[in-house]
């Protein structure tokens, strides 16, 4: 290899390093923004949640943590699967998935332990209150992002983006692509072993990605679990007249 070629190789490595750095920086910024937005969204939920008896809150928090752990474990497996070289893909084996649906049922059961169907222990009035509460809370969520376009973003755009992601995933899952990805993963693994710098970069990237997903998962589980607790504890006094008026005015 001539000296000139070596120089170009170095420049390529420098550029790649800078680009990977930008990616990590973007994820770190997203993570910090997500934390800020989630904090704003959960502020009112927490305020209502504090009114529930402490004993019940402890049980609910435990259940929320279990669900968060379940999703974090799923995410970890997904991440490990994307880096596989030799072994087969792993799946999370659990008798009963500890998902959001399960969490909602469990939280409702805290308030109605003797009921065979705790989710149905709401009155007709509670259901209408619930719809109002969901409307107001989602409106809060849109407001918390501070981005006016989020409110008007068409679902078709979201649907199309999801379609693109699904297509990419289906391409990635094809046999030949899996083979290519395994080769890429192998070369990354070798580079990480040989070069401590690559190891440092990969470690930082992994840490930032993990932090981002944990912020999202933990906050979402907490908000959903606590909101469910507020609903089933009949602690739904969220729809103040001025609030609803402002909401209706805005929507029209």
């Amino acid at each position, binding site marked *: 290899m001539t000296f000139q070629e070596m120089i170009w190789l170095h420049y390529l490595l420098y550029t790649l390093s800078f680009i990977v*750095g930008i990616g990590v920086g973007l994820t770190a*910024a997203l993570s910090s923004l997500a934390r800020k937005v989630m904090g704003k969204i959960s502020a009112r939920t927490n305020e209502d949640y504090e009114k529930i008896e402490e004993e019940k809150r402890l049980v609910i928090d435990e259940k929320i943590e279990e669900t968060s752990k379940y999703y974090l474990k799923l995410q970890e497996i997904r991440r490990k699967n994307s880096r596989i070289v030799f072994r087969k893909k792993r799946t999370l084996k659990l008798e009963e998935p500890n998902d959001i649906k399960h969490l909602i049922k469990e939280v409702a059961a805290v308030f109605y332990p003797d009921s065979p169907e705790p989710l149905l222990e709401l009155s007709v009035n509670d259901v209408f209150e619930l719809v109002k509460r969901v*409307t107001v809370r989602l409106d809060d969520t849109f407001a918390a992002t501070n981005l006016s376009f989020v*409110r008007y973003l068409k679902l078709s755009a979201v649907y199309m983006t999801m379609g693109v992601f699904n297509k990419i995933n289906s391409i990635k899952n094809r046999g030949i692509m899996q083979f290519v990805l395994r080769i890429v993963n192998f070369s990354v693994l070798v580079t990480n072993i040989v070069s401590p710098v690559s190891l440092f970069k990969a470690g930082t990237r992994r840490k930032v990605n993990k932090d981002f997903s944990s912020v999202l998962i933990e906050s979402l589980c907490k908000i959903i679990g606590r909101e469910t607790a507020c609903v089933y504890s009949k602690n739904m006094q969220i729809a103040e007249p001025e609030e609803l008026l402002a909401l209706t005015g805005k929507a029209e």
Partner: protein
Amino acid sequence: MDINEVVEPIANQAPQLLINYLIIIGLFLLGIAFGYFLLRTIYAAATKKKYKAKKTAREVEKAEIYDDIIIPSVTAYDAEYGNASTSEKLEGFKKAFLNMLTNISKAYYPDSDYPIFEVSADAIIKLADNIADRINRQLKRFLDDNFLVKNAFKAGVYVHNKSKKDTISYDWREIKISTIKSLIENLTAKPVVEEQEKKSFFGKVGASVKALPNKIFASFLNSKLRELIVETGMEIDKIYGGSKHAEIADVQTEEGK
């Protein structure tokens, strides 16, 4: 002693690899800082910009929606589910709702691949809220404002509370969904006709009386679901057609009453 005299020999001796590593790590950290501030700047700029929804829906005559989509949906529901059981009626309502959603969205967005998704999440939430409000008004109109029904309901609750351990409230708003579910199951699950045939004259009369709530409930549900289909169609029209049709839809509902 000059600092260069110390540093230069070390620098000369340091392997080229180490310098490269330092540059790579430096650029990586610089990239992180750049990416971080880039996104924060974009976010700050985006929060300042006020976005207004653009109306991209096609202009459609209100009569076109009402006559070509809503009324045929009600007719189709009548033909298929008019004499069906309660659970099938609810299934029929769901089918009519989906049918109207698909056709109304297609009428406003004929060129779109996903016409149902041509609205924002905000609009969908508003649609759910409005439909819940319509159901609330329907129930209120039927159970609170109608003297006969109001008292018949109270009598029914009295009879129920007298014979059962688990009492239910006289205010329909206070009744739990689980209770409503079990009541509906009790009303719809009994094979009334088969038992009735085996009994004597008085047994038949008794069975007819027992089957009365079922019949009243079925007829109530049928008429209410028909009204609800029309109202739901109008709400869907409001959401997909924008605010232009909102006032017209409200006037039509008032006329329907």
